[in-house]
């Protein structure tokens, strides 16, 4: 019941925002998202930390096709649901200082997207998964395309067409597996896990899935839509895309791809890992040369996701747990970084690194929170970023030392370009653009202090998070290993 509530509440909230015609759309959206967080916390409290799927709901949806409305939450889903519901109030609060045209549509789309995201993370039926996957995409396309920057139309259409292409291949893969399921066909995840597929078919399926998930994350060389879209989209949409939406891709790989086609995974993971590692180095090097703050973070995000991707394709317990916690950390950090950029841009009307500088003199509080969040992002010990990257690299090391060496560059290069950016934007002499910079206040303070708290708490007590997903991760690994054992 609680899963259904989690899924339907944001959808109904979205309708309510449209229908109620309130002048207070912002506040209403914030309240709705906090209620949703409350529901998620209630689920978290009642959650048993074992491998089972809890709060299960299973009813027939389209009987003639064996499509079920089957949703439930296990440890992996729980963390993703917490990420989504936790960040939404912050993202909505971060828009409070700006008034968008057609406000209620804006917030209605945001809430609808939340329903789609939750749906992706809780569905246990392939058809439902696909539907939610697209339901999350459409609203964010509209948010980005309607309220974005000057070049938004081309950038967002490219993004939309690109992702749809990927997901349609995933749909074809899902239909193929569905047609291979025994008896009256079924889209059920567990049936998918049990269906034996021959190795040629698995390879095709692997790549069909890979394209869909790699475009979403994005993994090199499927990332070309990302910097433009992040730059052109309005800040809330950028936050949604980078902090939550790209995790759909990682989640898809963990839940829908590797356990379904383990043999192809065994055969091809080297290539997927190589692509991910190339992405890390490539994106870090490009980030180094960026003049626009938003683009810099966009590229750093590709680098971070590359590491997560590499870890997921290693698929051992350490790397997967690292990926889980790193998804949360990256979500929190990248949200905060985009928010800080937004604050800087709204006061100086520029994102050009070269013409900023000396903000620290007039905004010491911003400088401190920025420092802490940046430390989290470049994985300093005792911050949230460290735990994830450490586990990911340790997991990757069991697979290949060379890959780890290259992937480890993400920490070094990340530190270089982030510190360099920090130095040029925050330190040095204040110029006439930054001398009157107003320090953070009000909502800005609330949001950034919460994030700083999260960065530190997650860094000091990662076990609270890791223990939630531990059993489920072990369970998935044993499913894959037992399937592989039968084949070998």
């Amino acid at each position, binding site marked *: 019941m609680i899963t259904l509530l989690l899924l339907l509440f944001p959808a109904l909230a979205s309708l309510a925002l449209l229908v109620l015609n309130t002048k207070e759309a912002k506040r209403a959206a914030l309240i709705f998202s906090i209620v949703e967080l409350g529901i998620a916390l209630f689920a978290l409290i009642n959650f048993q930390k074992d491998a089972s799927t809890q709060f299960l709901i299973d009813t027939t*949806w*389209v*009987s*003639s*096709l064996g499509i079920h409305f089957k949703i439930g939450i296990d440890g992996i889903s729980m963390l993703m649901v917490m990420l989504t519901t936790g960040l939404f109030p912050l993202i909505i609060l971060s828009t409070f200082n700006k008034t968008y045209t057609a406000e209620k549509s804006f917030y209605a789309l945001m809430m609808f997207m939340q329903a789609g995201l939750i749906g992706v993370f809780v569905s246990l039926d392939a058809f439902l998964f*696909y*539907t939610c996957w*697209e*339901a999350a995409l*459409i609203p964010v396309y*509209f948010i980005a*395309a*309607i309220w974005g920057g000057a070049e*938004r*139309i081309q950038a967002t*259409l490219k993004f*939309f*067409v690109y992702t*749809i*292409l990927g997901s*349609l*291949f995933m*749909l*074809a893969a899902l*239909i*193929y597996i*569905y*047609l291979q399921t025994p008896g009256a066909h079924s889209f059920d995840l567990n049936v998918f896990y049990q269906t034996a597929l021959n190795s040629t078919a698995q390879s*095709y399926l692997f790549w069909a899935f890979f394209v869909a998930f790699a475009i979403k994350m994005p993994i090199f060389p499927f990332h070309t839509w990302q910097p433009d879209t992040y730059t052109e989209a309005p800040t809330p949409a950028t936050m949604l895309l980078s902090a939550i939406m790209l995790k759909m891709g990682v989640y898809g790989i963990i839940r829908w791809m590797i356990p379904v086609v383990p043999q192809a995974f065994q055969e091809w993971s080297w290539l997927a890992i190589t692509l991910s590692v190339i992405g890390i180095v490539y994106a870090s090097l490009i980030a180094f040369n960026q003049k626009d703050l938003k683009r810099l973070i966009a590229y750093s995000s590709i680098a971070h996701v590359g590491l997560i991707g590499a870890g997921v394709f290693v698929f051992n317990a350490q790397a997967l747990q690292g990926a889980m916690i790193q998804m949360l950390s990256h979500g929190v950090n990248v949200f905060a970084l985009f928010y800080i950029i937004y604050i800087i841009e709204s006061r100086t009307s520029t994102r050009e690194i070269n013409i900023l500088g000396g903000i620290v003199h007039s905004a010491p509080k911003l400088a401190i929170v920025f420092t802490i969040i940046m430390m989290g992002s470049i994985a300093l010990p005792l911050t949230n970023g460290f735990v994830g990257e450490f586990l990911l690299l340790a997991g990757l090391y069991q697979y290949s030392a060379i890959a780890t060496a290259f992937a480890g560059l993400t920490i070094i290069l990340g530190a270089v370009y982030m510190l360099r950016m920090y130095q040029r934007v925050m330190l040095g002499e204040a110029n006439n653009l930054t001398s009157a910079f107003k320090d953070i206040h009000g909502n800005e303070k609330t949001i950034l202090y919460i994030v700083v708290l999260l960065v530190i708490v997650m860094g000091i007590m990662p076990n609270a998070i890791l223990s939630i997903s531990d059993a489920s991760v072990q369970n998935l690994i044993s499913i894959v290993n037992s399937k592989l054992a039968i084949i070998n």
Partner: protein
Amino acid sequence: MTSIIIITLLAVVLLFLGVYNKTAALVPVAYLGLLGALATQISTWNTNLYYFNQMVLFDNFSIVFSSLTIVTTILIILLSKGYFEKISSNVAEYLALILFALVGVLCMVSFQNLTMLFIGIEIMSISMYALAGIRKKDLASNEAALKYFLMGSFATAFLMFGIALIYGFTGTFNLDQIASAVGMSNGVIAPLFYAGILFILVGMLFKISAAPFHFWAPDVYEGAPSLITLFMSTVVKTASFAAFIRLFITCFASLSTYLTPTLWIVALLTISIGNLSALMQHSFKRMLAYSSISHAGYMLMAILAIGPNSSKAIFLYASAYSIASITAFAIFIKVKEIAQSDSFDAFNGLGKRNPGMALALTIAMCSLAGIPLTAGFFGKFYVFTTAMSQNYYWLVALAIVNAVIGIWYYFKVIIAMYMKESTDNSTIEARGNMALVLFLTTMATIILGIFPSILSSLF
């Protein structure tokens, strides 16, 4: 059967109402009559009645498809209020011709005998030729009618010849007897029989505007009055597909190994040509015309299975497509009336000028593009599933690429509505029948997008 009689009489009544100048009564009488026909049609569910020495068979297949065409016609007639008056003073003729065409359509979806198929197609086509050219002083309309008529008669001749050859082999026009003749032939089938099938195929492919027999469609669709175009691209196309699949499932299912290579090539050509041409268009109406060709291609993919699943897939696809087309054309007619242009730019700023209308069109475009939670997605889903169950993986992969291209041009409209500014910021109002039709079609698109079982359980 009763419904065919009702609709025929209704058309005659409308002509008389026209003679006595009772124009206000035309539309209400027409749709009340059609509702009556629909009711009698539905009341024969599960009866499987033959009429006229097995010339027609009203089985569930024919009831389902004829109900869809009747409902579509009702919606089109609702939209026609105030539309035909602007073109001509003889509104009754339009409505009567539409209804006569509908009679042909009902014969086409319920034929049990090849002569009946031919008669049905002819009744429908002749009405359509006249309707396409009904704006007699308009050059484009005349060109449309002439093209449609010449090409159409040519195609009908092929169909006729094909039927004759099949009669030559089997000695019967009856579908069941043809099927048993094919079954008893033990694989020894005369080459002329195949030639007959091929000719019938050409005739049918012309009617559904499949490549390479599609050249007439864009010009005819563009030249005809918009509501007539809507009727052609929904009712006529649905009926042609129904006839196509009825013929092939009943008679030639056992010959599918010979037919499917032709069909999948035609399907792929149709999808690609329709799509790529639609991508180049600047006129919304012409874009819809070409996209309607590509939709015919998707539906052909479902025919590859030649079985009950094909009828289901085609029915779902045709329903979703018809409903979304009605929305698109209804809004297009309104927008064109104000902007006096049928280019995409005419839609600029519609998001501000009438948010409700823009939302309806967005949902319709998403449905045509096959985006989840709309009826069009389930249409595509069924089609892809059906094709994949027959192992046409590469065809599906190429169809997917085409579906993505489709998004590109459907979203042009959405982008124009929400992201471009118009020079004219007056509000556009949708009232009365139009608002009702838009509401119904939009709701239907979403409801069928969430609960497709409503339709799929009919099979």
